[in-house]
């Protein structure tokens, strides 16, 4: 149990801080949230700056263009970029945090050379085609069909809740290649170019008013067999290899941000009198404990990442974090009182968007099933 930093790790932190202080003032103003081409350009320019300074793919292997650093540097990087107010991964979320690590783990040398460097350089944006209108929590029941014709798959179906679809170059797509096989056994992972004929993107508006995701219609889209990761009908395993681990670390920057927001909420409460209420103070104190422990849980998960059991902390983390984030912005609303009705307040928007956290990437109910069945060994349900 060692939470200290070596001199080399502290030197890495100092160097990163210096670099952030130097480059962040040079960034152009952040684009309007509704301006997707503008957001893509902004997010990719930031990713390019990270890459050119040697900070892209901190924990990715060197041979695919990463820095090859250990978990300590990975965490320091997440912590410092957030503390400095650097941009989020944004449109590069899927490429950097899911499709990329999946390709790194399961791709051939040729596939890794082809797809990973452009992700790290901020040149190609990925989106995720997993959920379908009839396949949500029961993801393995997905119906989008891929029929083999020579060295091509012909794909027909529809994908739902696809973030960044409007500006993506690639889609990591789960398709059914064996309609006879039960559930997850007939699924294959494909990299689909989003500009292929037959791909139609229809943006969907969220309850927060923004268009963060889309429905994607696929009408006889031709995808080369060379774009398949892993074997045919092995896509479920290919996908799950990285999913659980990324659940454990993808939100590290957000936990830092939540702790900062909590400090701001406390400052607001001190200035408007809400702090005099012990119920408010205790509610904020409890949240401080929760976010502090979630940060420790990330450090725990990252430290155990090489042990082959990363899934545990990942699902537990997601369950607790998604709930804590909602509770944070509910507490912020209590501190603001009727001021929380203003849609112009930053916390109001965060309160609305936090509602997706207990649904996206596996609902809390599905996470509890995973925890109970895979970690605690309870029998499958009726």
């Amino acid at each position, binding site marked *: 149990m060692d939470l200290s930093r070596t001199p080399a790790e502290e030197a890495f932190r100092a160097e990163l801080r210096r670099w952030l202080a130097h480059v962040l003032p040079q960034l152009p103003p952040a684009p309007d949230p509704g301006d997707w081409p503008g957001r893509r350009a902004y997010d990719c320019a930031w990713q390019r700056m990270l890459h050119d300074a040697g900070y892209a793919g901190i924990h990715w292997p060197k041979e695919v263009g990463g820095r090859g650093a250990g978990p300590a540097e990975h965490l320091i990087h997440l912590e410092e970029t957030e503390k400095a107010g650097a941009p989020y991964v944004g449109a590069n979320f899927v490429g950097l945090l899911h499709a990329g690590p999946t390709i790194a783990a399961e791709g051939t040398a040729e596939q890794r050379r082809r797809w990973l460097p452009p992700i790290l350089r901020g040149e190609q944006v990925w989106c995720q085609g997993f959920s379908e209108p009839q396949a949500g929590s029961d993801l393995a029941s997905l119906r989008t069909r891929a029929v083999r014709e020579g060295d091509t798959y012909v794909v027909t179906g529809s994908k739902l809740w696809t973030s960044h679809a409007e500006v993506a170059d690639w889609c990591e797509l789960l398709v059914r290649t064996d309609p006879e096989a039960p559930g997850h056994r007939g699924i294959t992972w494909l990299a689909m170019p989003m500009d292929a004929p037959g791909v139609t993107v229809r943006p969907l508006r969220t309850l927060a008013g923004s268009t963060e995701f889309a429905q994607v219609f696929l009408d006889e889209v031709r995808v080369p067999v060379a774009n398949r990761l892993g074997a045919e009908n092995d896509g479920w395993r290919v996908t799950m290899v990285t999913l659980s681990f990324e659940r454990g670390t993808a939100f590290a920057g957000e936990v830092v941000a939540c702790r900062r927001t909590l400090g701001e909420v406390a400052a607001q409460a001190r200035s408007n009198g809400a702090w005099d209420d012990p119920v408010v103070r205790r509610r904020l*104190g409890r949240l401080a*404990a929760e976010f502090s422990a979630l940060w*420790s849980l990330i450090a725990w998960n990252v*430290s155990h990442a090489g042990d082959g059991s990363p899934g545990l902390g990942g699902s*537990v983390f997601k369950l*607790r974090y998604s709930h804590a984030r909602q509770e944070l912005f509910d507490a912020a609303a209590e501190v603001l009182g009727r001021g929380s009705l203003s849609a112009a307040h930053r916390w109001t928007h965060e309160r609305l968007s936090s509602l997706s956290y207990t649904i996206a990437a596996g609902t809390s109910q599905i996470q509890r*099933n995973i925890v109970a069945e895979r970690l605690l060994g309870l*029998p499958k349900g009726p």
Partner: protein
Amino acid sequence: MDFRLTEEQQALRAGARELLAGRFGRERLRAAVEAKDLDRGLWAELAGAGMFSMRLAEPEGGAGLGLPEAVLVFEEAGRALLPGPLVATHLAAGLLDEAVVAVVDTTRRPLLAEHLADAQAVLVLDGKRVRRADPAAFDPVPEPCLDPLTPLYRVRGGPHTMESLAVLDTDVRTLRRQGALLTAALQLGIALRTLESAVAHAREREQFGRPIGSFQAVKHLCADMLGRAEVARVAVYAASVTGDAVDTATAKLLADEAAVRNARDCLQVHGGTGFTWEADVHLFLKRAWVHATQYADAAANEETLAAALRR
């Protein structure tokens, strides 16, 4: 940074678990419920194994270990539901020579103290100092305790009689912090043990022709128990490494909650059996309730955490 337990730490925890399983299994636990006195043979064995002196330097009779190691051993003590003034005696190592030591915290009302009749000496904590007293000096009156394994006493003697007591050369805030952390480690053990008990019962017990653990209503109770225990675990371990006051408040708050709520959910999973005296579940819940009031309760921990938020 590597938050994993070292091989030595894993071996220490495994050794503690093995020792306690051998010396304080279920039969001994149930026998202790009926017995009124501390098992001094077991106590001497624990002392011999270094339970209390482990953090002293080797020349002083200790093993030169740190808080992280102590926390691992206390986690096992909590898991075994080992009775006795474990934390107080551990804190007294190097300060007092007596074999069994209790604590009286004079800042709390009503003034109640655990294990006084079994103790040979008392650490008296107020807001500023740590003093030494004889148990008899408090004129203790037995008070029936909801936990059958924790003898409780109403204590007389206020601050005016304290002045005559010998002041010990140690920092009261550090002692309270370490007491809170070791108590949190006991709670972590309770949270883990009740989780295991609930899961084992849910896999075995059948209703509607299938194990009750196959139903989501039961499954989700168990999943949340694991969440509480794992969050408490990392909070307790992190505080044992940093020794920080706010980290300790985090650890105590989350471990208290994990122990109490896991014990309640464990009772719920056990159904009617869980409400009986014969089942062990109530012993875990009652002990968790006792520990939750010790050193710093939820209100105190939450206020400590709130005060530390950015001004």
